[in-house]
């Protein structure tokens, strides 16, 4: 199902520098430190997983990178530019697909380009956008479903549509917040292969948040293990598995070693 996209739609990934970022939430006089002194450098085109239990600050960090939350301390720069708010350069995928239920798959995919046109960020006309939507539908294996509404799609199809929508703004960085957490195991495995397949062609930088150790190892070039009190990034583990990877790699010695090591880190 992987027809390559036209060259124009592929944007090289950018480097992400997270420098001593901290965040404290205040509610009713109580202060909760969600993240303290967290630093990480993600190379351009790299796929890094943020792994940790609930409350380890991984979603908070992702939202700070997305520009949805301001950091109290430290800075995040993406491609050399400091983050100050949400931007279509930084695409985001959520645990649920977050498709707009009143729009067809095609209109969902074109939401970004149309919103940007309304903000006069580009002047691409409708035929051009329709052609791009058709290419993206094809790319994510949803040819023939451009006119379907989200409720007419299966769980996996919804996630692929959300993926196409995120790619339509040509982001150089994709932020993924436990995107396949709600899927059944088999669909999930398909989505992993789908993600790696797309990433292999686009080489977009990806920061992938998960609490699933095996998912983190299977996908990531590196896995940043989060936790502790105050919460932050502990160790960053290299995953020396070759590419392309598939679910079959989960039985290899390299995989099992990485899993043992990470499990140990999460318990300590």
């Amino acid at each position, binding site marked *: 199902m992987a027809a390559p996209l036209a060259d124009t739609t592929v944007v090289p990934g950018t480097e992400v520098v997270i420098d001593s970022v901290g965040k404290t939430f205040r509610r009713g006089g109580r202060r909760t430190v969600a993240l303290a002194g967290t630093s990480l450098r993600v190379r351009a085109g790299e796929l890094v997983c943020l792994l940790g239990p609930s409350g380890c600050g991984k979603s908070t960090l992702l939202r700070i990178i*997305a520009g949805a939350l301001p950091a109290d301390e430290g800075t995040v720069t993406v491609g050399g530019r400091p983050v100050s708010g949400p931007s279509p350069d930084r695409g*985001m995928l*959520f645990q649920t697909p977050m498709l707009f239920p009143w729009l067809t798959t095609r209109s969902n995919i074109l939401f*970004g380009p149309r919103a940007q046109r309304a903000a006069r960020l580009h002047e691409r006309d409708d035929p051009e956008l329709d052609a791009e939507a058709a290419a993206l539908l094809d790319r994510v294996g949803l040819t023939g479903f451009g006119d379907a509404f989200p*409720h*007419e799609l*299966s769980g996996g199809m*919804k996630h692929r549509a959300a993926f196409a929508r995120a790619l339509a703004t040509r982001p150089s960085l994709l932020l993924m917040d436990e995107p396949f957490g709600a899927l059944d195991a088999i669909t999930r495995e398909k989505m992993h292969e789908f993600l790696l397949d797309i990433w292999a062609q686009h080489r977009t930088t990806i920061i992938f948040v998960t609490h699933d150790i095996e998912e983190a190892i299977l996908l990531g070039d590196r896995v940043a293990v989060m936790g502790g009190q105050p919460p932050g990034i502990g160790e960053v583990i290299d995953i020396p598995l070759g590419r392309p990877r598939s679910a079959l790699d989960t039985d290899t010695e390299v995989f099992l070693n990485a899993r043992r090591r990470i499990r140990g880190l999460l318990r300590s």
Partner: protein
Amino acid sequence: MSLWNTLPAEEEVLADPGEPADPISAADDNERADLHAYRQARRRARVRRFGIGALGLAALVVLWEVLALIISDPVFLPSVSQTVASFAHYFTHPYPSQGKPLWYDALTSLRRVLIGFAAGSAIGVALGAGMSSSRLVRHAIDPVIEVLRPLPPLAFIPLFIIWLGIGEMPKEVLILIGVAPVMAVTTVAALDEVPEDLRLCARTLGATPRYTMLRVQIRSALPGILTGMRISMAGAWTSIVAAELIAATSGLGYLIMQAGDYLNTALVFSGIISIAILGLGLDACLRGLLLLADPSRRR
């Protein structure tokens, strides 16, 4: 308990549960390999449901006719044909005690409902939007609505007559006073329900805050607001007819009261049927808008 409060529950009971919300999302992608075939199957299911509903109504009419034949007293229970004949006659001919044909009373009631409903909806939606966007406004207005909402609008009739006289105004305000709190509450609920992440999603796709507000938040709340309108529309008919029974010289409520006083039972039924037709018609319009706004209900 007022009628207004019982209405949402009634709506839930009457709503057709149909198929589960997303019947085949768990199924394999292959099952929906063909979108066209999938939609046709759903359309066939819809026609079948409609047919079953029509059968239910037909059974009610048959039961009525059989009972009328057994009782054979047109003052107690006129037959279907007597009622239809009476409806057809008085639709264009004035009823002697009242001097106006049925269509005039139907139009009068319809006008009162539409004016009161439109004003009440506008005020309610505006209040709801204000309450959803500002904590201060919410905390200030919420108790006022909570005090007003359980009150039966009919209790205000004498007040409105004292304040506003016996013209059209008190009837329209009566409807407004029932519609506005329901619309405010449903609008707040609909706007609150829009997930934070849906807005963030729009922003990461390059939408400006203003574009996100209009095209995502308000658009996303629209089906909930339209559902609120369906609920308050039913309440609007209840209060207008009740008001016309008590204090009016025109309208379907007044016609029914007059016909009852003169023991013209067939005309009483004609008035009731007119209310049913108008109520169903307006609800069908709102339902149509709801289907336009929310594609997942088209099944």
